[in-house]
Structure formats: structure tokens, C-alpha cells
């Protein structure tokens, strides 16, 4: 493919691609996202391929292997377009049935959704309870794209936002649109992306960098991987638009080394984006150039922290930097470096295409747009969910999640992994909003939501999370390294029935000093889960210490 030299060339390529496609032709999309892949969905895809060949249906039925569809609980997932008929828990044996039904314009009843209580069926995506309460602006494209094929992305208006920005907007106009959209960072802090971009843009150094944080170290969070693996071009497009607005000549994508499919898709997407002229020199003939490099994490959680990540890109150990100066001003090699999360970047193209006014019409007052949430724990439907900000947790857990598993009752909701917090079931009507959830003590973090049922042992939950985090501390500063270690020892003693009445007092001091005195946000927020326990579940701790054990059941 020769490089696209202009916006017109892109539009003509898009028309060609669409002209070659028949929008009414059935297309079978087999999910190969992490969960379905784990269930060997590839054998299902292979079975479809041979069935199509066997029946000589090439050209009549299309097959596409895609990234995560979202409903991980019921994988392997298959969606048949154009009407989006959803099949769940598909096995290779179901394949001939699905193909014949599809050809006849019928539905293969055995594998459609059935309500666990009433048995009522739901056939199309917008009727399946898990999907119908969602607003899938980002993840919704996954079933429509083979991530290895840039043409699939172009076919659904891919890179139109980049073309619009480069050909009709100045960098300042792009920046202002993102500021007006009030896009807040999805990586944990909810910091306004526009102001961060502006800081880097205004920093005096000429050389500037833009970076995608695709480390996703938070336990029980899988949405960044789902985006990057299933729709890598959307993130690349967002990054290049950001580079244009900020005036950066170089981008970095920092992501997991341990996800082979993600790495494969990203490498292919970057090569294709370069070949087509969406990144590299003179992008779409605009005169703007931006190269992008791929970097891999070193398998430690703190390498997702901004300054640690930048040290890692420089080739050093990812030790957070103790500078009272922001990375947006002095980051990689002391140059202004704007870091955003995968999901933050993925939001950028639609803000440019559809405008800030459209974006701000979605969400709550101070948190705009949608949020991807990884739903897991004791919930009926685990998976990756996308809802407007401001959606009540009840909708997430009951309408979408199908409620608590095995008919048990809800005890607590945990957000934000090892640096988040747990709130009790009576907060079920709280809204998924950066500020509201922070105030409650369960900040959204990256968006990992754990549902905990009546049997959950809240001492064990805190112990389990600390046990994870203690190994992830880089060990540089005393309050984090020693503070977490001591908290873990005390909690372990309590769970083993060896708690003392003075323990709560010692925990109180440790929590206070660890959060006040640690160097980076890992230490500063390491005691947040425990703080939420002391706020909502303190009696459980007191009882455990007083009765000396009576260990409950499971953690999460």
C-alpha cells in the first residue's frame, strides 16, 4: 500500500474499501479476547473457517476474528452481523448449525441468551441484558474489527478524526476541544487531560513527548488490554492527534510484555499505520510528523506510575522520581512528557469527530463521557462493561452484572484494586463518578470493580490486597516499604487469630504515616483499602481481634 499523501487519498481509499464490501452480507465475528482465547475460541474460529470452505460459502459469509466483545462470562462469544445476533458459549460442534441458520436468515436457538430465571430468550445484542444497559462508544467497535487489518478500522471511519484535525483545525483548536470536552484521565487520577496537554505544550523545551500508559497493573482490570488488543488503531489515532495538539514529535506506547496477542496486534497496527502514513513523517501530507516507539514494562506494578514509567522508557529501573516537578514539564530525558492512559487516548478521536458538546452531553456533571469497567468477583456476569459516567452502581452490578452469584446477598463493592477501597452494599445507589466515588473512599481507579458477597471476609480482603502491593513496592522509601510490611504482618496475625487490641492503634498510625510520607502514589494510596475497612467494616476487625480468629471464608 503506498503511503496516503492527503486527506482526499484517505477518503478515496475509504470509499474503495466500502465499495468492495457488501453491508448486507453476513459476517461472523468470533471473539479472541483474553477470556474467550483462554476458552480456546480459536478452535471455534477454525471450525467456522472449514465450514465456510466446505459449503463453498466464501464471498457469501465473512468471518472475522476480533478482540474482546465484553461478555467474558459467556465466552466463547460469537456475534453475527449485520443484525448482531449474539451466540454464547459456542463450541465447534455448534458451528454448522450457526452457519446454516445464518444462511437462511434464521437464528440458531441453542446458543442464544436465555434468562436464567424465566428462560426468556434474547437474540440481538441490543436485547441481551448484559449489553442493553451499556453505552459502548469505545469497546463497541471491537466486534467490527479484525485488529490485524487496518482496513477494518478505516471502514468504520477510522483516522477520520486525525484527518479532520490535521486538515481543518489548528493545534490550539484541537487542544481547546479536548479541554472543552472536560476529558478526565482514565488511568486512576481523573486529572483533566486538556490541562495536562496544555502544560506540556507550554513548557519551554522544544522536544516534547506523548506517551500511552498501557501498563494496566491494577488487579482485576482488563479494559486497557481489551482496547489495545482489540482496537489498537483507535489508541494510535488518539495519540497522534494529541501529539499534533501538543507539538510533540515523538510518541511512546508503553505496555505489557506478557500479553502475546496484544504485542502482536500492536506491532502490526503500528507497522500498518506507518505504511499508510498515519504516523511517521509528513502525516497525510500535512507537514506534521510524529514517530512512535513501542516499549515494554518490566513486570513490576510501579512501572505504571508516571515517573517510574518514564525512567523505564529511558532504560533505567522504574523507580519513581522524587522530584517536585511534574513529568508534563520534565519527564523522559527531562523533556516535557505528556502521559495518558489507553482509555483516555481512545476517547480523543470521537471528541474531535463529534465535538466537545456531544461528549459533554454524556455523563455526570463533573465526569463526562463513558467509562470502561472490568466487572468481576462474585457477580453473575463478569466482563468488560462500558457505561456513561454517573451510572448508578446498581445498574452495573444488577442490571448488567445480573446480581450476586449463587443467589447470595451483596456485602461490599470494591473499586480500584490494591490502591482503591471497599464500600458496603447500602451504597449501591452511588454513582460511577470520579469525585463521588473518591469521597466514598472507593475511587474508581482504572475501573476494576469487584463484587463481594455475604461470605467475604473483610480482614482477608485487606490482607490479600496488601500482600499483592507489598511485593510491588520498589522499596526505595521507608514508609512504603516498611509501613506496608508492618501492616501486612499485623493483618496476617489478625486473620490467624493472633490479633491484639493494640493492633488497631498501630494500624491507624501506619496508615496515616504511609499515606502522608511515601514518595510516590503507590505508597501514598497503599493503605486506602484498609482505610475504607476502618470506615465501614471496623466492627468486623474488632470482633475478629476480640474472638481471636473464627476465620471467615474466602477473600475475593
Amino acid at each position, binding site marked *: 500500500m503506498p503511503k496516503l499523501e492527503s486527506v482526499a487519498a484517505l477518503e478515496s481509499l475509504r470509499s474503495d474499501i466500502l465499495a468492495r464490501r457488501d453491508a448486507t452480507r453476513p459476517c461472523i465475528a468470533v471473539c479472541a479476547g483474553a477470556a474467550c482465547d483462554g476458552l480456546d475460541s480459536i478452535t471455534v474460529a477454525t471450525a467456522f473457517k472449514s465450514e465456510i470452505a466446505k459449503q463453498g460459502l466464501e464471498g457469501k459469509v465473512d468471518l472475522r476474528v476480533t478482540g474482546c466483545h465484553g461478555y467474558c462470562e459467556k465466552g466463547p462469544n460469537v456475534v453475527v452481523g449485520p443484525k448482531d445476533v449474539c451466540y454464547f458459549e459456542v463450541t465447534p460442534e455448534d458451528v454448522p448449525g450457526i452457519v446454516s441458520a445464518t444462511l437462511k436468515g434464521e437464528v440458531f436457538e441453542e446458543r442464544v441468551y436465555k434468562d436464567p430465571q424465566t428462560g426468556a430468550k434474547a437474540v440481538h445484542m441490543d436485547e441481551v441484558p448484559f449489553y442493553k444497559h451499556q453505552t459502548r462508544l469505545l469497546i463497541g467497535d471491537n466486534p467490527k474489527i479484525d485488529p490485524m487489518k487496518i482496513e477494518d478500522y478505516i471502514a468504520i471511519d477510522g483516522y477520520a478524526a486525525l484527518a479532520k484535525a490535521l486538515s481543518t483545525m489548528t493545534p490550539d483548536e484541537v487542544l481547546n476541544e479536548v479541554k472543552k470536552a472536560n476529558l478526565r484521565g482514565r488511568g486512576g487520577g481523573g486529572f483533566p487531560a486538556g490541562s495536562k496537554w496544555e502544560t506540556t505544550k507550554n513548557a519551554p523545551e522544544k522536544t516534547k513527548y506523548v506517551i500511552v500508559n498501557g501498563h494496566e497493573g491494577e488487579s482485576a482490570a482488563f479494559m486497557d488490554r481489551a482496547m489495545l488488543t482489540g482496537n489498537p488503531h483507535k489508541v494510535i489515532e488518539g495519540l497522534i492527534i494529541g501529539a499534533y495538539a501538543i507539538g510533540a514529535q515523538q510518541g511512546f506506547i508503553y505496555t505489557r510484555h506478557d500479553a502475546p496477542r496484544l504485542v502482536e496486534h500492536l506491532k502490526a497496527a503500528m507497522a500498518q499505520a506507518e505504511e499508510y502514513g498515519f504516523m511517521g513523517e509528513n502525516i497525510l501530507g500535512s507537514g506534521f510528523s510524529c514517530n512512535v516507539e513501542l516499549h515494554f514494562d518490566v513486570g*513490576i506494578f510501579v512501572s505504571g506510575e508516571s515517573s517510574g514509567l518514564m525512567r523505564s522508557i529511558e532504560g533505567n529501573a522504574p523507580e519513581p522520581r*522524587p*522530584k*517536585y516537578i511534574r513529568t508534563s514539564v520534565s519527564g523522559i530525558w527531562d523533556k516535557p512528557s505528556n502521559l495518558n492512559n489507553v482509555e483516555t487516548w481512545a476517547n480523543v478521536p470521537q471528541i474531535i469527530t463529534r465535538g466537545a458538546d456531544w461528549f459533554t452531553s454524556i455523563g455526570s456533571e463533573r465526569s463526562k463521557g463513558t467509562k470502561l469497567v472490568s466487572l468481576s468477583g462474585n457477580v453473575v456476569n463478569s466482563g468488560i462493561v462500558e457505561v456513561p459516567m454517573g451510572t448508578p452502581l446498581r445498574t452495573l452490578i444488577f442490571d448488567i452484572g445480573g446480581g450476586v452469584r449463587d443467589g447470595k446477598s451483596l456485602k461490599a463493592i470494591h473499586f480500584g484494586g490494591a490502591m482503591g477501597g471497599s464500600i458496603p452494599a447500602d451504597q449501591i445507589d452511588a454513582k460511577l463518578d470520579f469525585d463521588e466515588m473518591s469521597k466514598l473512599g472507593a475511587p474508581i481507579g482504572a475501573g476494576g470493580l469487584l463484587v463481594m458477597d455475604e461470605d467475604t471476609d473483610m480482614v482477608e480482603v485487606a490482607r490479600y490486597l496488601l500482600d499483592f502491593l*507489598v*511485593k*510491588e*513496592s*520498589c*522499596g*526505595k*522509601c*521507608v*514508609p512504603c*516499604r*516498611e*509501613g*506496608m*510490611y*508492618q501492616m501486612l*504482618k499485623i493483618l496476617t496475625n489478625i486473620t490467624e487469630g493472633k490479633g491484639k487490641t493494640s493492633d488497631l492503634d*498501630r494500624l491507624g*498510625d*501506619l496508615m*496515616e*504515616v504511609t499515606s*502522608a*510520607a*511515601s*514518595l510516590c502514589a503507590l505508597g501514598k494510596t497503599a493503605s486506602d483499602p484498609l482505610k475504607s475497612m476502618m470506615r465501614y467494616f471496623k466492627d468486623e476487625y474488632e470482633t475478629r481481634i476480640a474472638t481471636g480468629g473464627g476465620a471467615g471464608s474466602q477473600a475475593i
Partner: protein
Amino acid sequence: MTDIVLNIDGKEVTAAAGATVLDAARQAGIHIPTLCHFEKLEAYGGCRLCMVESESRGKTSYVVSCLYPVENGLVVRTRSAKVDKIRRLIIEELMAHAPEAPELVALAREYGADKDRFEKEPIYCILCGLCERYCAEVKQKNAIGFVGNGPEREISFVPEIAAKECNDCKECFPLCPTSYLQAAFVLVESLTFAPAAAEPVAAQG
């Protein structure tokens, strides 16, 4: 460069732009305790003992003075109930590992720290990083490094370099705030297990 005027413990202090609060305090004869700080090395911010209370534009925060740059109008309190509490707990945490280190014993007396608050696990090293940074920054030999994360972190001599460099240097030993015996011990241990200089060094996995 214009000088910066700030207030430390009620005293007006002048410092050069770019100086840290610790520099400014020391110049003015105000004492702030430190464990990982050494003039010849880049500030590190690891021990967190030098934390102070700072007030800037009506906002109170707790910052490490060895890194925090001075700014005009900054109000600094080197002691307060919260600062003392932070220091006390840090001392208590470190005394679980080095209960007899003279510097810690003296600090414990000053801050009323209880050396027995946390269960003892003496390992002597408090990971201040002075030896490691001295070797890297001043001597530029990198004979010592950290290995491991979190509580597993420890200092370790690189045998191939240590065998060549350390015997005639040992300049890092007196920097150790706990007891340089530990450093010496680790050194001896590494040398004992080091391959003989003539033999080819096996590649490290």
C-alpha cells in the same frame, strides 16, 4: 539569580533560587534530621525523615525538605505534632531492623520512639542507599547495587567489580548510618563467593 525569602520556624531565611528547604534550613542553623542525605550526592528522598510541614498559598502539605525547592513566601515548620509523628513512626520501623544503631537510638530518644513497637527482624541495613550512590556518583564504579523489591530489597556488591575496586577504597563504610560491619560482611561474603579473577565469569541468568 535572585534570592528567595522564606520563613522557617518563624525565622526569615534567604536562600538561592534552586536551593532546597534543607539547604536553606542548614544555612540558617536550623536542624532537620536526615538519614539518606549527603552533600556530595544527589538528593534521594528515601528515608523521609527530613519531612517538614510546608504552607504555600494557604495550603498545608508535608514535603521532604531534602528535595523540596525553596519558594518565595513559603512557610516551613520543621517540628509539629504531625511531623513528629511521621518521624517517630519511621524511626520505629527502622529500629525493627537496626535496634542498636547509634543514630537511631539518639533519634528515638529525641522523638520518643519505642524501639520495640514492631517485631524485631534485625538485618542492620536500613537501605538509605548512601553506599550505593556514593559508589555510583562519586567513585563511578557501581560496585554496589540494590536487588529485590519492597521488603525484599537489599544491597549487594557486584563481585567482579568489588574484587577489583573495594579493597583499596572502602570509602563508603563510614557513610553507613547503622554500622559498616554489615557492608564489610556483605563484601567479604561476595568476595568469598566470587569466581577467581583468572577464570571466565559465568554469564548471569
